[in-house]
């Protein structure tokens, strides 16, 4: 196996008495597409939020590209190269598509307050350049000629795509997608699955997916991790996971296992 890009060591999160994530060890190898699945309330999103610094873990560590990131603020994670989307779309609803992507470039631009007021040649150049790159990203994400559209006015699928474009603008090494195909129709889902594959092949990204749609999970990822009640109950290739008894049990209940 190639080198691990992201690792967690017995990562744990408690909300009061509730253990949402229970000592999970987890590895995302560089260049892989990894899926995280589990029934509702299994702690997937909580786990995700710890991987991006939104939540601080109760115990354990997050290591990204060899650096211990535990306890760092969210923007530090983004700076190091973790980009993410949200389960319930969180675009800047009243900004245009282009502006959304430009915000994503924040950490990669350097213009300071004083340079912005004086509009130095460097900042001018940087802004023009950023706009060109933002348009390229929108086009890559299938949002051609939508740059001046207000986020809220985009169709659902386009909003999802814009979220990805915005995450790509942060120039991530690792892209975390939180249920990206939720609410998409089968055709959109198929397109999106292709898009994720292209992210790796064309942009060299490592991708971590939270997904409910098994066709996406089985179609695109080479490793699957299953969470249930905050615990990691299985890990392996998609076909191994499909046969795993504990996974079937977690999804369908014990009765399903005993009768089959």
């Amino acid at each position, binding site marked *: 196996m190639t080198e691990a890009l992201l690792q967690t060591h017995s990562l744990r999160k408690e909300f009061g008495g509730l253990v949402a994530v229970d000592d999970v060890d987890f590895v995302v190898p560089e260049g892989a597409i990894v899926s995280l699945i589990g029934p509702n309330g299994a702690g997937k999103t909580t786990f995700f939020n710890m991987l*991006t610094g939104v939540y601080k873990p109760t115990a354990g560590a997050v290591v990204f590209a060899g650096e211990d990131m535990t306890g760092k603020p969210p923007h530090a994670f983004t700076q190091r190269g973790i980009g993410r989307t949200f389960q319930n779309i969180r675009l800047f*609803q009243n900004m245009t598509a282009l502006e959304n992507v*430009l915000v994503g470039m*924040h950490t990669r*631009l350097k213009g300071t307050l004083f340079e912005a007021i004086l509009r130095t040649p460097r900042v001018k150049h940087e802004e023009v350049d950023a706009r060109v790159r933002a348009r390229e990203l929108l086009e890559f994400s299938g949002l051609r000629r939508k740059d001046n559209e207000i986020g*809220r006015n985009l169709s659902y699928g386009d909003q999802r795509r814009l979220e990805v474009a915005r995450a790509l603008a942060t120039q991530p090494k690792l892209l975390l997608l939180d249920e990206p195909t939720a609410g998409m129709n089968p055709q959109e889902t198929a397109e999106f699955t292709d898009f994720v594959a292209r992210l790796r092949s064309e942009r060299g990204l490592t991708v971590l997916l939270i997904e409910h749609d098994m066709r996406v999970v089985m179609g695109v990822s080479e490793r699957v991790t299953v969470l249930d009640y905050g615990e990691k109950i299985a890990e392996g290739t998609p076909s191994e996971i499909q046969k795993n008894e504990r996974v079937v049990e977690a999804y369908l209940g014990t009765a399903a296992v005993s009768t089959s």
Partner: protein
Amino acid sequence: MRRRLRAAISAVWWDILGRLGLSHDRWTALPRTARRAVKAAIWTGISLLLVAFLGVWQWSALAIAAVVLVLVVPRYGGVTIRGRKVGRYIIPAGVLAIAITYPFYAYDANGVSPGLPQLPIFGTFPLMSTMVNMGIFSMMALGLNFVVGYAGLLDLGYVAFFAIGSYMAGWLASSQFSQVNLRFGGVGVIQGLTGIHISVWLVLIAAGIVTALAGVIIGLPTLRLRGDYLAIVTLGFGEILPIVARNGDSLGGFNLTNGTGGITPIDPPGFGNWFHHHLGLPANYGALGTTFDRDYFWTVLVLVLLTIFCSARLRDSRLGRAWIAIREDEVAAAAMGIPLMRTKTWAYATGAFFGGVAGAYYASYNGSSNPDEFYFQISVFILVMVILGGMGNIWGVILGACFLTYLNSEGLNNIGAWLNGHFGPGGSDFQVWHTPLDVPLYNFGIYGVILVVVMLLRPEGLIPSRRRAAEFHEGVHDQPLYDTAV
């Protein structure tokens, strides 16, 4: 209710016009500019009639009406000069030209209006001193706009920055510290006067920088809070600073602020003799008799223009985008790599900077800095200017600031005089009340009513930013996210 009322009025209106042979269809068939021209002409006609019957008629009213029509009617958006789009600058440039020349046609050197009509109800055009105050408050409102309008942080203690700026002028350009004797370009200082007397232009810069630093110091612990909590803590700071100023006449025996007496006199602005002789700039604003407010006014115009310039440049920059992103959705902004604390602190410091400069200029204009001037009401007053005019929109904020400052300085007084003259004791029309009504006494009640009415009819403000208007109608997608418990 509002919609039904509007529908009813418009039905009656079009019914009457339809009988006159001017139906709604014919109206909508007209080109847009023509429709705007007709609407503007109707309103101008009504205003002129009011001036004629309720005010004091002057033929210059027609000139004013013509200027208003020229500014309002044509759509300048697409105007180009040699291929460069200049359309959007035409209206601001027109308004600026009117403002710059105001001292020439509104009030002569003796403070008498040479040729403007009296407005109905509102009476005379704003005095020069009111115009100066409008500029100062525009600057402060624009400063607060960085915090409230751009970054979406509710700051109820903005007056603290106003106070710091004002006291900076007091410390650096008066005889407050008589222990030291330092002079650097201060004008109008009598021989042998002790204290620090630094040129007001340097004081303005110093006040801005010190206030911005104060903004950072206040911001660092408080900006971690969200929403209501932030509002309450800033409110606290806004209360603490004036009280420190009030009691600062003996801080361990040291007289810092001269207590309730305030620091006075503060040196007036001016360029000194060298610049006066070589470049013709006014040597000392305070020494020019009754025309001195002209110089104060033009100077504050320059300061406001600088503030507008910085506001516009920052709004369209990387930092401005980050502010707006934070306002729209903090979690998403953080996930996009925007350092929340640092970005918010920049907004706070930038806003504080302009508040400080405005405060220092205000102190220099009034010749004093007094703790009575920095009360909570001022914070709210400036906040109302921003909200009323349209959060996040530079022109809206300036409109709000000018309108409320005008009402506060003389508008209410004039309205009161008009009301009493017509309906009060010995009124020229029918007498309604028997003791004169003191309208300015009810100022905050009146502002409250204005605010409520505007919020009902136009929640996004008089001139909203496109984005803000959308937020008010669609809501912002912002949920609490951080687990602060950890």
